[in-house]
């Protein structure tokens, strides 16, 4: 997936460079008609490639959305909604892997900081506490992609072990 995004970005960047560079060059130095046509052809090829990449990506997302929904008439009407939700879930999973309630269910008292990171990924904030019986506080904070609702989860450690878990409302 990351490779697709990279390709996507590369193509955008290349198109941008070509499109913005072309008029500048025409001012700075003369461009022959042959060079111009060659560039135009190259841009068209890049745009075609970009369309292919985007179509492949959308197809994959749509396939995933279709697979997750029974195809009744009512459900078909919410196809767009499902696709949107799938995209949002993907974005959330990529940016906030800890916004998955099932992961928090895997936490338990006595776990080490490394084990917590193994389950939830790195915390947003990693800070000691002023509480005398808390050494370290891992704060997981972010906004839900769909609703922009701010959610916060907290894990507290004492002497290298989890002593308190505040599960985020996800």
């Amino acid at each position, binding site marked *: 997936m990351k490779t697709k995004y990279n390709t996507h970005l590369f193509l955008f960047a290349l198109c941008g460079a070509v499109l913005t560079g072309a008029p500048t060059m025409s001012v700075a130095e003369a461009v022959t008609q042959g060079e111009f046509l060659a560039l135009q052809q190259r841009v068209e090829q890049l745009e075609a490639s970009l369309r292919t990449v985007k179509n492949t990506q959308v197809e994959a997302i749509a396939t995933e959305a279709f697979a997750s929904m029974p195809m009744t008439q009512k459900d078909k009407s919410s196809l767009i909604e499902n696709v949107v939700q799938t995209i949002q879930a993907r974005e959330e999973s990529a940016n906030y892997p800890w916004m998955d309630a099932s992961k928090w269910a895997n936490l338990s008292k006595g776990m080490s*900081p*490394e084990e917590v*990171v193994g389950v939830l990924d790195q915390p947003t*904030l*990693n*800070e*000691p*506490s*002023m*509480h*005398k*019986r*808390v050494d370290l*506080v891992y704060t997981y904070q972010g906004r839900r992609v769909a609703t922009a609702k701010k959610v916060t989860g907290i894990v*507290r450690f004492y*002497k290298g072990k989890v002593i308190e878990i505040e599960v985020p409302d996800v």
Partner: protein
Amino acid sequence: MKMKKELLASLTSAALFGSVANAEIPLTDDLSAYGYIDMAYTDGGDYTEGGADENLDGGFAEFELGFSFAPEGSAWSAVAELSFRGQGVTAAGEDIDTKAETVTITYAASDELSFTVGNILSYQGFETFDATGLFQYSYQGYDNNVVYSAGYAYGASADYATDDYALGLWVGEVDDSASVEFLAAYTGIEDLTVKFIYANDPTYETSNVWASYDVGSFTFAAEYTTTDIVGVDDDDSVYMALAYYSYGDGGLTLRYSGGEFGGSDFDKFSVSPGYSFSDNVFGLLELSYEEVEDKDYTTLAAELIYSF
């Protein structure tokens, strides 16, 4: 690697050097900031000869700002801390004392072994240099004196820390002579920490040993510090015992300390209830009774700390 490096850094700053790390605000992937603001008031004894009891004194006690630079995957890291301390501030415009605290560059040769150069805090002491790590307001010496012979000093250290034990050696220079400090710490039994520190400087020689143990909601600690100061007949020799009881966000500290310090015999008893308003905000009160060379003093202190 980063996590282990952070743990190592945490160990070297908290366990070995006896200070308490502060919060971490990521500024970039590699750079973070932390610090705290300490407000304190005291009302109590004037220890000067023939002096009357002082009135309420205090206000801004300290603002500390630190930066930690720890690039992902690099064995090198650096810390720089600035401390702005009030000078018994009671009126606007009084001087602020600015000092560098920990300013270090560290090379982590492995997860256990690290080498550090710079301005490094002494290994000595159960009582931390920063107010954020104390169980009460005052230090165990009378008149809020620190009984340890060293604080921050320029030098180089080698530290080896495992889950069960830690060893540290610091070497500095004073008047063309070497100043050394050695640490041995044992943490192999759960909830128990024992440390022995020996310091040998051209101007003093100190042995400091302390232990702390957690049992349920209680923390117990005991400490003995003796310092032979060059040119002074009587050694400093101070004992300390502390019990802390935690109840929810609150806690109560009882501490006794006594012995000979600065040429005076003393006994000190402190009672200090504290409360954590949040993970960042902590407040406490302290009432201390002191007997110094047959004179009695009573000191009341209130403190509020915000860490970030």
